[in-house]
């Protein structure tokens, strides 16, 4: 039997697709915001010199980097309620993505902090900078500039991972695809369209990342 793809199912439901895109962006951005905080805390633990803080951070990073995201998601959504911590699928999705993002960004931020030249910190002290000023101007901002490309790749991975949260019925782009597929059976057209939309989102993020790089981190080419 010959099958003729009909993309009218995509154009006819364009509103749902746009809604899906916005939800995907929303879920990913929330997760990245929380995840980055976790990543910075983790990196502080890794570089603190305190054996306990370092141990906790290492255990956190290694555990979440060496288990599948789907299992982490199921653990948060199905596992935690059985010990009395319930959450909506949306909350579980953001939490799982954030914790996963945090584990990877811990190592990225740590590399950035360790890449800061100690002599510059000493120079800052010699110039009479306060502790907080040194941390802000000499440690964090240049470190962010150095690790920026790695962080952007991690953001892209977070967008792609967010499709998995459809499996706990959190509503986003992939969820829209599954919903339409189950009603129209036009799986090829729908999943191809959604795949291309993800490519578009990834390109969009990369384009914005380049703009931000030029605006805020242009100095990194001088300090390396």
């Amino acid at each position, binding site marked *: 039997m010959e099958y003729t793809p009909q993309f009218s199912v995509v154009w006819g439901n364009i509103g749902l697709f746009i809604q899906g895109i916005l939800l995907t962006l929303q879920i990913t951005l929330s997760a990245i915001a929380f995840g980055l905080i976790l990543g910075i805390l983790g990196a502080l633990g890794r570089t603190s010199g305190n054996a306990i803080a370092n141990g906790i951070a290492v255990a956190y990073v290694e555990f979440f980097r*060496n288990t599948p*995201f789907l*299992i982490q998601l199921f*653990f948060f959504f*199905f596992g*935690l309620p059985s010990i009395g911590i319930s959450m909506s699928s949306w909350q579980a999705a953001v939490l799982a993505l954030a914790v996963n993002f945090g584990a990877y960004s811990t190592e990225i931020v740590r590399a950035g902090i360790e890449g800061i030249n100690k002599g510059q910190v000493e120079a800052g002290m010699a110039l009479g900078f306060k502790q907080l000023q040194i941390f802000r101007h000499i440690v964090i901002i240049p470190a962010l500039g150095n690790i920026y490309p790695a962080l952007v790749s991690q953001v892209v991975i977070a967008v*792609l991972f967010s499709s*998995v949260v459809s499996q706990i019925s959190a509503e986003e782009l992939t969820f829209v695809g599954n919903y339409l597929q189950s009603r129209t059976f036009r799986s090829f057209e729908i999943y191809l369209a959604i795949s291309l939309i993800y*490519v578009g989102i990834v390109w969009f993020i990369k384009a914005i990342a380049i703009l931000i790089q030029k605006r805020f981190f242009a100095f990194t080419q001088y300090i390396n």
Partner: protein
Amino acid sequence: MQEFTLSQIIINLLIATKWTIALSAIAFVGGGIVGFIVMVMRISPNPIIKSISLIYIEFFEATPLLMQLFLVFFGLSILLGLNLSAWVAAAIALTTYSSAFLADIWRGSVEAVPSGQWDASRALGLSYFKQLQKVVLPQAVRMSIPPTVGFAVQVVKGTSLASVIGFIELTRAASSISNVTFQPFLVYSLAALIYFCLCFPLSLWSKRLEKQFSYAG
């Protein structure tokens, strides 16, 4: 109604782990073979061959693995009128996924070989493929081993998504067992632990290789 004891849960999870390992191995070996071809196309001087492999890599790197699984399992089945089993669909999707990432990793290693090596071997009268085979690849392979081992971890974790299209491996088994036993906390913790035992040694190995090679180089 059958009651599951702890040891039965663990044994059933371990039986399913066999399929996680089998699927990972197929995806990694298949992905390696296809990825090698894509990598050779990617560094080809011919612009058409080069852009085909560029599009291939970009598509698989910029779409979620879950979407690729759906495209193969539901999409290809409908488009070609085939009835792909979950096992075959998962193997195809994970192979193409791995091939794109491995091609990209290996391209990076080949391009890290100084261009003087190409020039020198051309001056010695070697053909393009002889230059690649005798001079460039032996040097690139050394550099590519640590990230390749690191990517194996991504493949093992990626196989968990095959559970979504109904392939019974570790994650799928964990879901089924937790539905029967009503002990999701325990079952998913055990499943996570098994994945950790598979992935962590690979991660450590990759890190150690990276250190070894960076001292040697």
